[in-house]
């Protein structure tokens, strides 16, 4: 009777340890899944939009805003996305 209690006790402890390990495994699996999920969400910013129309005088000269935007060194002058638009 004493032996069987000891066995039951051991089985209980083993079961608890197993459940804990399983729980920990699930937790790790969840953490891994969460990290994998977030990695998929690390998306680059949006592509730049289309530049506007050009008059029949063509792209040369300062009056051509789209061509100036295409060549601009500054992101703002280049009409690139900002933190609110991507």
């Amino acid at each position, binding site marked *: 009777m004493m032996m069987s209690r000891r066995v039951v006790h051991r089985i209980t402890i083993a079961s608890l340890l197993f459940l804990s390990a399983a729980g920990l495994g699930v937790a790790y699996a969840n953490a891994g899944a*969460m990290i994998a999920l*977030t990695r998929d969400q690390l998306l680059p910013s949006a592509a730049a939009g289309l530049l506007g129309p050009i008059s029949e*005088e063509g792209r040369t000269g300062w009056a051509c805003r789209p*061509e100036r935007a295409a060549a601009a060194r500054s992101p703002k002058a280049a009409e690139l996305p900002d933190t609110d638009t991507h």
Partner: protein
Amino acid sequence: MRLALLPVVLAGLIACEMPASAQTYSSTRPIPATTSIPTLHAQAVARAVHERFRIGLAALDASDWGRAATQFEAVVALHPTEPKGSTAWYDLAIAQANLGQNDAAAASLNAALALDHAFLAAMANLIAIDLRRGDVRDAREVADRFVALAPDSARALYSRGLIALRMDNFAVARSDFAKLLSNDPSYAVAHYDLGVTEARIGAFGTAQHEFASALALAPRYARARFALGTILLREGHRAEALAAFERAARDSSDDPTLHGLAIAMRDAIATSH
């Protein structure tokens, strides 16, 4: 004596006729000063090109894409001289893109570039349209030409960086975003993209630094806040990650997808304790 001179003076005045000077008006439509058939034909074509450009540009301005496309198709059919030819193809592409005809728009921009090899705005728009239709390879080829012609162009560097990132070409992406930032360190979006590049390589410390730089420039930049949260979570800083997702959820009310993700991440961390 004086009275004797009066008739002479009057006669002199009458004889001296003051000619009325002719008033001239500049003509907006010069009268053809030729009877040459080819010259008259060229003038008629030039007039048609001018009028169709005027109507087409007004239609683009009014978002009347179909009408604009009709006008610019008529212009290119007339084969006008440069720069009108390449410009008409470029404007036609804008109308076609807005009509959802992305393949036709790409063909029009290639026609513009065949006429004018250094047309930077056409390259910029061709990259945007190639990305819309999923032709990353052509977008990359155009972006390489764009960067070669305008090495400091923010648009060229930004576009090629994004394409390289999409193609897993991290060295080019890193180089282009870094150069964009060396030209303008205040561009938060480039810090964010450089952070994404570094994270993809596995350089999480550098990625975290870039996301933090983006947020220092734009504290309400929800996508950068979310990205920072993912790095913090990966590094095991759950409390800081939770705070980042919480703030990202608060700042992303105008982006339902990001808002939902940030809330899901926040709740997942909160319930996994």
